[in-house]
């Protein structure tokens, strides 16, 4: 009896003490401190946003340093946000998407790269891209990665048959405005029954929107969802809808791929990274596509940034890593390996950008994208963008696919946006239109 009693007590005592002891030590499982030391960099990125070979090269160049690169799938931004909220296992270096400004209100979670001496590198990169990584009060939280300049991809053989210009420069000149492009679309559809001018309408809404500098909420945090940029994109899209110019296939779907290989549409507006999808789907029509400037002016969709979080243990090393993998030379490498379009000016002027591409009948299409990239102006995505855009995109899809009346949809979008933004983005200011 004595024996079992005391052994029971010892058991109880140690059971009670165990978790406390384990919390103190850095025992895996019981500690929220990340493993590794000052010479390890934990980096988050998503698939195909960075060429991992660059990490290995960095490790080689810096013996003793380990880059623990982690591919994060699923909802990247949401995961990152939750990790920041959890204040545990936050990566040292993190890739950020084009809507980097959604992090501006929480800029204190990141290292101000100007404090690391980033100003020296400013001249290496496109100005609008550099500015996009800067918060409204001048902190640099995102170093430029890749960009997504838009272009008009078109079937030059179909254009020829329809009596439209076929050379990229001529096409660019002819389609200065969206209306010109749509007019030509009517002509083409008449000359080539069974072929539509473009792939779908809702995407045109996005493309036109991306030609603007501000979207639903401007830099002063005033709601402008009923303002010029949105209205223009809305009207342009509906014009295309009214003229019935779309094949109704959405990008990133098997239907779209089929549309390419079956030649259901003669052109589409897309970012430089759409090239990859086109190549994958269009084996049988290689040589027929060309690239020109977008109607209505230059635009950009996508592109990324890379930043250092305040939790980074060795900030200098992290900054060194960023500068290395985003140097003009590295960006050229990533263009070659992953088709990531550079943001570094020297990279844009690299000879590889003038290489002819077989798929495009020998046209060096990169030149078109370089032209666009150099013409772009700085833009601003408010943290409210994802919410607002979701609503407007849904409404215009309802019109185009569901036949909802246009003005009703517009009012609905405004109403919904107001409701959602007042709930999820209460800092947004609402000025009553006079």
């Amino acid at each position, binding site marked *: 009896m004595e024996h079992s009693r005391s052994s029971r007590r010892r058991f109880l005592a140690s059971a009670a003490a165990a978790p406390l002891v384990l919390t103190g030590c850095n025992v*895996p499982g*019981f500690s*929220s401190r990340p493993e590794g030391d000052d010479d390890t960099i934990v980096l988050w990125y998503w698939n195909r946003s960075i060429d991992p070979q660059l990490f290995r090269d960095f490790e080689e160049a810096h013996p003793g340093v380990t880059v623990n690169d982690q591919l994060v799938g699923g909802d990247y931004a949401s995961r990152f946000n939750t990790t920041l909220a959890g204040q*545990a*296992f936050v990566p040292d270096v993190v890739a950020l998407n084009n809507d980097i400004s959604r992090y501006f209100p929480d800029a204190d979670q990141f290292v101000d790269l100007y404090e690391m001496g980033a100003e020296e590198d400013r001249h290496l990169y496109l100005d609008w891209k550099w500015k996009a990584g800067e918060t409204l009060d001048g902190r640099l939280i995102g170093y430029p990665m890749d960009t997504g300049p838009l272009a008009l991809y078109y079937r030059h053989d179909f254009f020829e048959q329809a009596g439209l210009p076929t050379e990229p420069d001529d096409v660019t000149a002819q389609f200065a405005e969206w209306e010109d492009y749509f007019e030509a679309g009517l002509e083409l559809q008449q000359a080539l029954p069974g072929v539509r001018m473009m792939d779908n309408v809702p995407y045109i809404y996005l493309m036109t929107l991306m030609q603007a500098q501000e979207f639903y909420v401007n830099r002063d945090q005033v709601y402008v969802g009923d303002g010029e940029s949105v209205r223009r994109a809305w009207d342009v899209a509906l014009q295309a809808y009214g003229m019935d110019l779309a094949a109704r296939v959405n990008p990133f779907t098997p239907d779209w791929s089929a549309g390419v290989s079956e030649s259901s549409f003669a052109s589409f507006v897309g970012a430089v990274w759409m090239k990859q999808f086109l190549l994958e789907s269009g084996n049988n029509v290689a040589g027929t596509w060309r690239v020109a400037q977008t109607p209505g002016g230059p635009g950009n969709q996508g592109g990324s940034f890379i930043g250092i979080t305040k939790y980074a243990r060795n900030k200098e090393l992290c900054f060194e890593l960023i500068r290395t993998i985003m140097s003009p030379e590295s960006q050229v490498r990533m263009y070659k390996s992953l088709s990531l379009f550079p943001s570094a000016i020297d990279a844009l002027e690299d000879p590889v950008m003038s290489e002819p591409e077989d798929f495009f009948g020998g046209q060096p299409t990169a030149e078109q994208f370089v032209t666009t990239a150099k013409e772009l102006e700085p833009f601003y995505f408010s943290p409210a963008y994802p919410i607002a855009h979701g609503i407007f995109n849904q409404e215009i899809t309802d019109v185009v696919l569901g036949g909802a009346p246009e003005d009703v949809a517009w009012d609905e979008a405004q109403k919904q946006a107001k409701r959602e933004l007042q709930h999820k983005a209460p800092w947004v200011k609402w000025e009553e239109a006079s």
Partner: protein
Amino acid sequence: MDNTYDTAQRKSLSWSGLVLNALLVLGVLVSIFPFYWLIVMATRTNEDIFAYPPKLLPGPHLLDNVQRMLDSINFWGSFANTAIVASLSAVLTMFLASLSGFTFAKFRFPGRNLLFILILATMMVPSQLSTVPSFVIMANIGWVGTLQALIVPGLAGAFGIFWMRQYATAAIPNDLIDAGRLDGCNHFQLYTNVALPLLRPALAFLGIFTFINSWNDYLWPLVVLINPDRITLQVALAQLQGLYQTDYALVMAGTLMATIPLIVIFILGSKHFIGNIAAGAVKS
């Protein structure tokens, strides 16, 4: 006590008895079937699983599937984490709930009723109400992504203390306590020498109950274990399913491996468990 049993026996020979017995057998089959189907899927290839007509018997591919599964996720790591969390949760809960339950049951002290009502009041509140604030609390004390975040909050469960108090009230005679007092025992000694031996059956139940619930817990580990290298079995299983959706053979192999331990433990401990659940339900 036997009477319903006799009635049941007599009934079983009648027509209605036959129907009811058939129902019973059907009930058992239905309860077991998904496990059987799990075994079938875990031991076959995907072609077999998606074939029509479906193959209904287990196949020979268990080891292949398990091997592939082990290569795809950190199974043993999450298994270990789960085992640690469940065991510690069970032991610590048994300790805390019995100590506190015993104290509430057998002693009067200022604030006793108030404190107990406080516990009862929180029983009405759904645990998910606390999910968001608990996460924030964990973030601020540096426990996000740790195993103690899974263990510690559950130690103050209302059920455990309730259960032990019920049992202690009934099972510990006051004379024993008085005797202990006279022997010069302090409160804690009363607990270890007098109460614990008498509370054993209730402790066994509570331990198994807590172990099972901790093993199966999903929402809270999903929320708080943000490091994908350090998760529990349920979260790992959910991830497996999310990543390899159509690779049924793989996912089912993982599910089978994750489920077997608990079934074994349950079957071994079932006599402590089942009787108590029923009795508890009837008493309340």
